[in-house]
């Protein structure tokens, strides 16, 4: 079988696996909704007070911009995670044992599959744009080209690059989890910002291309006006009044087309680069070096065939009374596998049982991080007391509350991610105790990582800000719990949280500032809003957990 055929077969299998999921339909639904926002006039692209006249040309440009801004962000989180899924399900190891299992072929197949998924979203968006044009004024061949050209030449290359980035993030072990999901938001912000710079080599979203074309058209239509700077706005209603001018669309010179194909090449290159980092077929490869460290610590390498052979036969141990085993355990000849005389466990009261469960959840959230994680948490706490006067202590939360993202995102979906559902759902109170305990633990983690600001606010007597911080500490895990319980994945929370973080606390939008960093959020009583939202999200998590339990059964 040729390599190309192998890649296509692998990609097709991967695409089918994704396309047959319920979430794929939701994804296409989201693309359709995006098309609706274009149709409903929520998008405005303008230069100063001037905007291109309505028609298929403008529609095609809006599809390209909606893709560049929205799908390039959302699409990444939609397609990311397929390598992790293969590791979790063991499919990766099966593929590794076949001739097809070379790294480059594997990442190439993932790249093609990612592109196909994003392409399906773009197809829905583009097809609906054509349908809208037809609905308004009928559709001609020219109109199809006017909509199709920006879709194919601006939007599609953007998504190809996103597909390549997703493969790269999936393949680099430390980018595979929450850190990668948070980092991508900054990468995406950087790419959007770079598009504005004007160089075609940085213009992923086609912003500069459209800007130049619009500016030329405006100059021709209104020589008396000197306006520049393209503004892209998305607002449900309430868009500012603008003066319309005729625009024939981007002139597709060979050079312009070549610059768009450059992004296709870049996406392909990223997928190739990903193969260098991929350790799909070694379950310990994710932690380069740590396996050896573990072996040194434990005196054994788990999973080593020689060790397993030793395990089945047993070898003489230094201690004559024991038998050493390849897995590092030791067995007394007379002992083991007898339960007689074991102390009985004590069943706790309902309150104590809840506290124990919450304590266990909190230990789980806090444990297992690298040493620097704890160092940064401690540093953030100290920093709350070293801020310049006039700076609210909760400002440090902008950094401190990025640290627990991976822990929060596991709420509500950890059982599914690790296959422990049956053990936990058959334990008492999978909804009444375990779910609230997870919420309490998540809030506890928020307060632990905010220890410095909490103490500083308390000492300063600023109880209103303290209450706002407390509301945020409950709101964030409630959001994570709800999204985790319904999606079974960590990604929705990780993606949404970083967007909320950027819009709310960083940019000071009061009703999204869940940290209470801006004084305005405190003044308008946003803490009440976040408390109510937390309660609603926690209640919504309940049927999500019920759905998880039904799925296991």
């Amino acid at each position, binding site marked *: 079988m040729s390599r190309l055929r192998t890649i296509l077969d692998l990609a097709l299998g991967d695409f089918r696996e994704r396309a047959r999921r319920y979430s794929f339909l939701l994804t296409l639904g989201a693309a359709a909704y995006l098309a609706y926002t274009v149709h409903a006039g929520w998008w405005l692209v303008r230069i100063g007070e001037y905007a291109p006249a309505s028609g298929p040309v403008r529609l095609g440009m809006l599809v390209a911009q909606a893709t560049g801004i929205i799908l390039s962000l959302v699409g990444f989180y939609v397609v990311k995670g397929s390598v992790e899924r293969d590791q979790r399900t063991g499919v990766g190891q099966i593929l590794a044992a076949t001739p097809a299992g070379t790294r480059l072929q594997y990442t190439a197949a993932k790249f093609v599959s990612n592109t196909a998924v994003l392409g399906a979203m773009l197809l829905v968006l583009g097809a609906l744009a054509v349908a809208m044009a037809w609905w308004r004024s009928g559709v001609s061949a020219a109109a199809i080209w006017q909509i199709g050209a920006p879709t194919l030449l601006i939007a599609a290359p953007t998504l190809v690059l996103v597909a390549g980035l997703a493969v790269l993030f999936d393949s680099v072990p430390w980018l595979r989890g929450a850190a990668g999901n948070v980092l991508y938001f900054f990468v995406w912000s950087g790419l959007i910002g770079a598009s504005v710079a004007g160089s075609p080599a940085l213009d992923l979203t086609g912003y500069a291309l459209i800007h130049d074309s619009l500016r030329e058209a405006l100059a021709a239509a209104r020589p008396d006006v000197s306006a520049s700077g393209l503004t892209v706005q998305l607002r449900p209603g309430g868009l500012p009044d603008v003066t319309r001018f005729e625009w024939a669309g981007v002139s597709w010179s060979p050079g312009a087309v070549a610059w768009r194909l450059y992004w296709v090449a870049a996406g392909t290159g990223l997928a190739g680069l990903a193969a260098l980092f991929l350790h799909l077929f070694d*379950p*310990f490869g994710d932690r380069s070096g740590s*396996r050896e460290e*573990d072996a040194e*610590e*434990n005196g054994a390498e*788990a*999973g080593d065939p020689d*060790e*397993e052979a030793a*395990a*089945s036969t*047993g070898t003489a141990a230094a201690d004559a009374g024991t038998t050493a*085993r390849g*897995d*590092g*355990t*030791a*067995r007394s000849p007379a*002992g*083991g*596998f*007898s*339960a*007689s005389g*074991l*102390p*009985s*466990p*004590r*069943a*706790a009261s309902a309150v*104590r*049982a*809840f506290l*124990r*469960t919450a*304590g*266990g*959840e909190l*230990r*789980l959230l806090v*444990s*297992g991080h690298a040493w620097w994680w704890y160092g940064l948490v401690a540093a953030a706490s100290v920093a709350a007391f070293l801020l310049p006067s006039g700076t609210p202590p909760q400002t440090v939360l902008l950094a401190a509350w990025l640290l627990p993202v991976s822990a929060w995102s596991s709420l509500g979906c950890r059982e599914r991610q*690790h*296959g*422990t*559902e*049956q*053990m*936990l*759902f*058959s*334990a*008492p*109170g999978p909804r009444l*105790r*375990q779910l609230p305990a997870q919420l309490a633990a998540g809030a506890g983690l928020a307060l632990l990582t905010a220890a410095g600001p909490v103490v500083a606010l308390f000492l300063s007597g600023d109880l209103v800000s303290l209450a706002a911080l407390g509301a945020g500490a409950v709101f964030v895990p409630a959001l994570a719990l709800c999204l985790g319980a319904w999606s079974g994945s960590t990604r929705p929370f990780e993606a949404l949280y970083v967007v909320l973080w950027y819009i709310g606390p960083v940019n000071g939008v009061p009703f999204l500032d869940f940290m209470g960093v801006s004084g305005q959020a405190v003044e308008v009583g946003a803490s009440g809003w976040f408390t109510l939202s937390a309660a609603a999200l926690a209640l919504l998590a309940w049927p999500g957990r019920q759905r998880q339990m039904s799925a*296991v*059964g």
Partner: protein
Amino acid sequence: MSRLEIESVSKRYGDLWALRDVSLEIDRGVVGLLGPNGAGKSTLMRILATISRPTEGRVLWEGRPLTDDPDRLRRTLGYLPQEFGLYPRLTAREFLRYLASAKGLDADERLEQLLSVVNLREAADRKLETYSGGMRQRVGIAQALLNDPDLLIVDEPTVGLDPEERARFRSLLSELGGDRIVLLSTHIVSDVEATAQRIAVLDDGHLRADGPPEELLAAVEGRVWEAVVAADRLPDLRSRYPVASAAHRADGAHVRLVADGPPTENARQVDPSLEDAYLGLMQDGREDGGEGR
């Protein structure tokens, strides 16, 4: 009244009936649940573990339906699923402590001793991601015993265990079955033979037999044969009879099979084993074409 009563339980997934009209009453002891892959064993286990609900029928624990108050059973249930995961970054001790917390137990002392029981004490502080399959299975066994369960459900528990561990685990199950109910689901007949005082056989979602091992053995008494045949006759014998074993030797293939009469001229009758009884039962079921279902 038995402690555990399974009354005409059926379970349907879409158009497929995974269980049909299964009834059992169990008071104590090890009950082996045998059946081929896809027979409905794990479905029944999940229903008894309160994870799944029957489509029809009901299950009663100490006289009360499970659906009324599943937590009543959960407090005293130990469950080892057929497939389960662990949190790879935790150590075995941390993981078991977490599960004890999730079950609302104060079980630190018992936890430490359970680590010894399953021979993981020395590896208890290693991260679970470094564990072999057998070690992971032993963690699963330990978590099922955390609450000293009155009902212990173990689904294919010996998967991944080496022969020595398997033998030890069987004796642990026998010991536990003395004063509680142990439900052992497996398709490995020798596991059941070594531990169970009672055997229930599921096939295609139906309960095909339920009784002590002796009862199953009596059903194939006089129907088990051993013969030495030419190797090229083996395919024919396999197509006509359930073959328990076939070993190639210098003088030909040594075959052990279940048949109503002598399958070859030189066949000699031998005492049946539980595996013979199981194969005979499965064969009878197929020949009956589902009679009694």
